[in-house]
């Protein structure tokens, strides 16, 4: 078995493969050196989120996909669909999930090239470097496509599909994945070609969120397109339509080819500009009035330091922003659903979308709090080692103050105005008070998820594999909470008032307790950092 595995491993490095690579403008020796280097760095967990998922993270994602597709297969087999429909469903699912995953991974590999600082002055041509980076996307396909389609492919045989159905589904899924991977790379190639280096990171983040946004738009925007009619000049006959389709296909293929060419042109020259490309935005040196308030009420200058630190880093740390991106379309979707029935008071007999609002804050904070410890400038956390021990607790209070004032209180002021306008002063004020108490309680509890110094750890790509499942689970929990709230609580105004008071008190107590835990987590994390010297000398080999 081992000789066979070795032979298969050597195959892509053989003379024939080298000749093929050379013909494509890729230097085979340097290509394999870089491929091995990136693999080695990923396995040793260096430059996490810059090289994409390592084998362990990919295996975790593969298991999640496998479980999800197995569940879907069982449900579909019970419905006994036609093989063609069954085939189309799994191909569409592959396309949707792979678009999200590959866009994100292409962004990791191509728009955040920190390794460029080390390699930019090495004699590597752009095509070789790009090809080595893109080999990673092929690895992802090899892991995830079989995980997503293996069980459904076999399941197809149980609904009367022909014997070759598994091969057909897997082949089509690999082909689709390959096309999506090339398209993702082409998008980033166009971005690298036309977007200035200082805007590239932001543009990459927008590109990553595009597939999810398109999905949300498709789900919720059908009404928007209701009145859009096909233009009269589009022919109705089949032949011209086929011709138009082929032309569109040719243009798409050209766009992908040109995008890939842009990517591999002078990539290593651009890469340095990307790595060193600051936003160019200059921050005005101004004194925040809210900062004054926080220093006054939450623990002096260390609290102000925590408040200002989190405020600025959340806006400027691009790894943090990038990790939050997958959440945005879901939040916009829930807000859209709530807004559709906004005129219905939560105290009325019918279910109002407003019931989702307090839990939406909980969901947002549920994502923000655990992610708050990861950042691109995590090495700067040494600074906190120099802070006096007594500053840690007020520093933590300052961070909580930012989360509470900016994410909970400020939106509730807007909510109060809107709610009183639509539902009257009494209902509006009561609902806002209730929502504020619920959101504050969520924050009080979820503060415990901040496991160390904010922005003090490198990002962990493995977390992203669980994000999709978390979003599904969180959405379900939110819907259940909203329905219970509607049927159990919002029948009586007095019950809501009592609940708001009790939840507010619970929020206060939970926050006090969680702040202690948070400060302890920061101290513990700093303790680990100061102990690093003891484990520095790590022998390899």
């Amino acid at each position, binding site marked *: 078995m081992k000789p066979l595995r070795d032979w298969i491993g050597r195959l892509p490095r053989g003379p024939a493969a080298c000749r093929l690579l050379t013909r494509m403008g890729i230097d085979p*020796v*340097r290509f394999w*050196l870089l491929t091995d*280097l990136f693999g*080695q*760095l990923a396995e*040793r*967990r*260096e*430059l996490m989120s810059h090289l994409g998922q390592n084998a362990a993270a990919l295996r975790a994602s593969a298991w999640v996909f496998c479980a999800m597709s197995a569940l879907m297969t069982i449900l579909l087999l019970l419905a006994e669909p036609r093989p063609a429909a069954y085939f189309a469903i799994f191909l569409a699912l592959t396309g949707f999930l792979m678009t999200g995953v590959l866009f994100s991974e292409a962004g990791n590999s191509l728009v955040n090239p920190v*390794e460029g*600082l*080390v*390699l*930019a*002055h*090495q*004699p*590597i*041509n752009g095509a070789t470097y790009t090809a080595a980076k893109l080999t990673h996307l092929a690895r992802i396909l090899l892991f995830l496509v079989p995980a997503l389609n293996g069980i459904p492919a076999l399941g197809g045989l149980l609904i009367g599909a022909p014997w070759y159905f598994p091969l057909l589904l897997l082949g089509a899924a690999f082909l689709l994945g390959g096309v999506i991977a090339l398209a993702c790379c082409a998008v980033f190639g166009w971005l690298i070609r036309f977007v*200035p280096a*200082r805007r590239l990171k932001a543009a990459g983040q927008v590109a990553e969120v595009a597939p999810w946004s398109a999905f949300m738009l498709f789900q919720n925007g059908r009404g928007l397109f209701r009145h859009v009619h096909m233009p009269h000049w589009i022919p109705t006959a089949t032949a011209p339509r086929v011709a138009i389709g082929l032309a569109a296909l040719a243009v798409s293929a050209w766009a992908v080819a040109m995008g890939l060419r842009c990517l591999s042109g*002078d990539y*290593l*020259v651009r890469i*340095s*500009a990307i790595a060193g490309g600051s936003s*160019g935005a200059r921050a005005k040196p101004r004194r925040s009035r809210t900062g004054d308030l926080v220093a006054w009420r939450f623990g002096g200058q260390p609290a102000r330091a925590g408040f200002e630190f989190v405020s600025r880093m959340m806006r400027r740390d691009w790894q943090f922003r990038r990790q939050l991106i997958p959440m945005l379309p879901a939040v916009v979707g829930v807000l859209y659903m709530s807004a559709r029935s906004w005129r219905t008071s939560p105290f009325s007999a019918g279910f109002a979308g407003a019931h989702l609002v307090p839990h939406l804050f909980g969901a947002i904070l549920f994502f923000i709090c655990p992610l708050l410890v990861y950042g691109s400038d995590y090495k700067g956390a040494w600074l906190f080692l120099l802070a006096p021990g007594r500053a840690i607790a007020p520093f933590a209070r300052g961070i909580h103050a930012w989360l509470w004032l900016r994410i909970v209180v400020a939106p509730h002021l807007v909510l109060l105005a809107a709610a009183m306008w639509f539902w009257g002063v009494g209902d509006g004020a009561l609902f806002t008070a209730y929502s504020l108490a619920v959101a504050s309680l969520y924050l009080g509890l979820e503060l415990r998820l901040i496991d160390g110094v904010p922005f003090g750890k490198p990002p962990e790509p493995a977390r992203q594999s669980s994000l999709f499942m978390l979003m599904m689970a969180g959405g379900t929990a939110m819907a259940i909470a909203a329905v219970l709230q509607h049927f159990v609580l919002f029948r009586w105004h007095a019950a809501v008032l009592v609940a708001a008071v009790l939840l507010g008190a619970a929020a206060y107590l939970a926050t006090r307790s969680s702040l202690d835990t948070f400060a302890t987590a920061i101290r513990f994390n700093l303790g680990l950092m100061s102990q690093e010297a003891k484990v*520095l*000398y*790590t*022998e*390899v*080999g």
Partner: protein
Amino acid sequence: MNTGQSAPIVEFDRVVFSYSYTEVLHAISFTLGRGEVVGLLGPNGAGKTTTIKIMAGILAPGGGVIKVAGLPLPERAVDVKQRIGYVPETAVLFESLTGQEFLELTGRLHGVAEETLQARIYAMLETFSLLSDRSSRLDSYSKGMRQKILIAAALLHNPELILLDEPLSGLDVNAAIMIKDLIAALAAGGKTILYSSHVLDVVEKVCDRVLIIHQGKLIADGSAESLKASTHESTLEDVFRSLTGSATVDPGVARIVAAIAS
């Protein structure tokens, strides 16, 4: 050392470079002759590192003509990179690699034959007293050890042009003396060295010629002696202060002391 009379190895002709919309190099022109050791001086933000990165093919200029070893940049950047050794200002390394692995990677990327590479790595590590740490990850190296690795990596492929951006940063006294001797020996062997530093007495000792950049413009080009003579100053530090206007440093120092005392 060579006086640079033969065909220049580096030609910079009216080179312009901008970061975003800020022009940081304004039509800089100079040449470097083979075997020359040239000091590149300038205050922080003057454009020294940008000049070196352009020469290394890492940054593409916005205008002007650049040739390194007769090859135009950025068009032939890959070929130029094969001929240069570059020690960057900041020691960015793949920290999970060991010293040995990092040097092997660099040498192989430059196409150095395996036996030659291993012999050179051994010699470099031994010279820099890093043999016992060759199997330790780079994240465990001190700043000086990392700097030694960067210098070794820059020399492994026997480059024609060596670009040193603050090479003595973090090195102990013995290592710094060794690097100064190494620069002299390499220049005697026909290598061209561009040496950027803020340590002016070292520059004065090791360099045949000095270039001073200030606010993106080349404001002086000549030997330390000729610059001292033309500005009527006694040391290179005085020449630097006089040309870059840093004689006004003293009021600034007084302001800082006053601010922290208030």
